[in-house]
């Protein structure tokens, strides 16, 4: 089983309470099961007796995880509890035990196709091509990350192969990626292609600062907790004149409403709504404050459940400054 490769994590987390305060799901369901300890305990049961994988409640718990990297980032020894859950999802898929709603979502994601348009030496994969002059653009769905997080390794690889083909056809050697989940997925995967996050590219363009403006920056789970706390988004926003104020009560919690699980809102909409409600409850002045997120997923989700929130993506924030 895939979880067997994560025995060190099971052994460490199953009786450890030290990061439970950071589990986004545990913080809204309050269930012991929805913490690294809770999940490690059930997967320990599965390790002891593989028949336990058939337990529907265990499966539901595994698919409730938001796969936030905040816990791993906090952990003194950085035990990869997310890796354990992903392994369990693969085991569930391979055992043919995957819940219907997950299967349907996976089928939809498997249909992704990718097209390249425009002219240029650099390929841009995102929604704001206007910000990058002289770039080709690549569009389509998720490049395979979402399927990977659902446990569909084979299907993820097939989608990624289609993506890779499109990149190769573009003949570009640099790929700019906007969505943090895609950046995380692609950054070490494309041989011979330099993959950069859009913030790194825009930062090097040395944009002029606009009028100083206060904004709350909602860290991306991927950029902060998966990708070494990338500094370029904050530097870029500062360069553009935004005075960034940390959101919430602390710098450790993930406020990215399930971003780590990529399609979390489609999978667990009730939970996602709770995550969004928590973010809004923590806001000082929801209607008047400006929020910036690097993730389109985060923007779309927060707006869906709180239409009055004023939130823009990182690229939109930069575009607004450029327009001034």
């Amino acid at each position, binding site marked *: 089983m895939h979880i067997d490769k994560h025995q060190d994590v099971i052994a460490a987390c199953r009786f450890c309470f030290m990061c*439970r305060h950071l589990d986004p799901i545990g913080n809204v369901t309050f269930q012991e099961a929805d913490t690294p300890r809770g999940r490690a305990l059930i997967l320990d049961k599965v390790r002891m007796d593989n028949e336990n994988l058939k337990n529907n409640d265990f499966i539901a718990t595994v698919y409730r995880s938001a796969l936030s990297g905040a816990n791993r980032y906090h952990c003194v020894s950085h035990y990869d509890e997310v890796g354990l859950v992903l392994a369990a999802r693969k085991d569930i898929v391979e055992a043919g035990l995957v819940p219907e709603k997950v299967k349907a979502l996976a089928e939809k994601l498997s249909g992704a196709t990718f097209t390249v348009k425009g002219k240029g030496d650099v390929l841009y994969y995102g929604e704001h091509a206007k910000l990058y002059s002289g770039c080709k653009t690549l569009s389509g769905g998720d490049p395979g990350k979402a399927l990977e997080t659902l446990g569909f390794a084979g299907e993820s690889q097939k989608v990624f192969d289609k993506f890779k083909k499109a990149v190769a056809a573009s003949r570009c050697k640099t790929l700019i990626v906007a969505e943090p989940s895609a950046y995380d997925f692609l950054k070490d995967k494309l041989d011979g292609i330099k993959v950069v996050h859009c913030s790194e590219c825009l930062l090097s363009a040395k944009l002029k600062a606009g009028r100083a403006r206060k904004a709350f920056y909602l860290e991306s789970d991927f950029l902060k907790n998966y990708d070494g706390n990338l500094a370029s988004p904050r530097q870029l926003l500062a360069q553009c004149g935004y005075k960034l104020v940390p959101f919430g*009560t602390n710098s450790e919690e993930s406020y990215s409403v399930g971003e780590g699980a990529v399609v979390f809102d489609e999978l667990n909409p009730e939970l996602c709504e709770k995550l969004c409600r928590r973010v809004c409850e923590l806001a000082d002045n929801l209607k008047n404050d400006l929020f910036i997120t690097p993730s389109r997923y985060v923007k779309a989700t927060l707006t869906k459940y709180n239409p009055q929130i004023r939130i823009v993506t990182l690229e939109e924030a930069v575009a607004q400054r450029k327009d001034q």
Partner: protein
Amino acid sequence: MIPPNSYLYEMIRSELSWVVGDDHVQTGDSDKLGHSIDYYWVPEVWHDRGQKLPPPDFVVYPASAREVSEILKIANTHNIPVVPWGGGSGSQGGALPIYGGIVMDMKRMNKVLNIDPISMTATAETGINTQHLEWAIEKAGYSTMHFPASIACATLGGFIANRGTGVLSTKYGKIEDMVMTLEVVTPAGEIINTLPVPRHASGPDLTQLFLGSEGTLGVVTKATIKIHPIPESRKFHAFLFKTMHDAMGAGAKIMTSRLRPCVIRLYDELETARLIKRVLGIDKQGAYLVFGFDGPAKNVDLELEQACAICREKEHEDLGTEMGQAWWDHRYKFFYPPYMFHLPQAFGTLDTVATFANIEKVYWAMKNTIRENFPQAAFIGHFSHWYEWGCMLYARFIIEEPPKDPREAVALYNKIWDMAIRAAIKEGGVINEHHGVGLKLGRIMKELYGPAFKVLEDIKKVLDPNNIMNPGKMGFRAKGI
């Protein structure tokens, strides 16, 4: 335990759902498993060895004192146990549903209700995670000054129930010194408040009755606690002494000269060699002593200097502020895997407290008991929480390879506890200083209290005639007796 497929089970489930809503009554295996194991070594080893753990019948998540009250009324009607659960981080088995019934998980009650900057107090629901509470209070510009190693795991209610303590207790007190007033739902379901201030001459102190009652006398639903300004300065200093005895003399003198350190911590020679080396990288022989002061910068410098002068009276190695600060910076690291002791090791924290006149005797009594009777066990200890009159001993026994058979392992474990705690009590120690009694040490309560235990038993009987609240814990009656 109620058979899950019975109509009685469904009846109780329906009644609970009417109070808290369907979503907040959990009966699934995942959550039941999480609530069958707390931080007590026995359920851990039981799980590890594939044994079946007693699960709760229902895990219920109330959102208000009124809901708590309704749940307790249902439990009284059906005569089923209710076990409050905070973060499950207790080490004494206090939150385990040993007779099934309802686990009342308090974490939904997590709001900070008020911060009073005039009186410097804060009121919160007791299911709040203490790190979340501290963050919220810090955002308002203050601090609870409650920094236990389990700050991120436990709830305010759990600390109240266990008389818990934090790293800075020497100045800011244990939780029982921090609490102003409590809201409690009694076992009968009545919602009561204790007096609004902790100092008065209006009869005995009800607040203190519920502090440390471990869910046996009711459910604490709201608490007002003191809060503090963020100190201008906080500094640490560390010394190494040849022997623990010398270090103890220095620590005691700091306290009896009435300096006000926020923390003193003294590690015996073995723990210095094992843990201080492993976690802080300080590889020295002797007893490591660290202390800190906080407050206005001038006062801190002055008091720190006086404390250092006391330490320099004995043969010592001055490790300076840096190695003191290193301890503070890594104070929680001791508790993360792999630094914390873990299975297959058997380990237990034999914490107790005594006067300065007795504390070393207690230490040696415990150590000798372990050494003479359990040669397979190592004994280490540090002294963590200091008072004007004495200090707390945080001793640990560790067995690298306990018996494979879970029954034998647990029997050995229980025997060590019995003998070590009894040895401590003989020399003026008590069962526990800040982790509570729980399931683990209930059997020794009568011995500790003598005839006075009947007073506690009578209070329990009057408040909880059906014995629904956390039966079998803290030395009180088991369910059905």
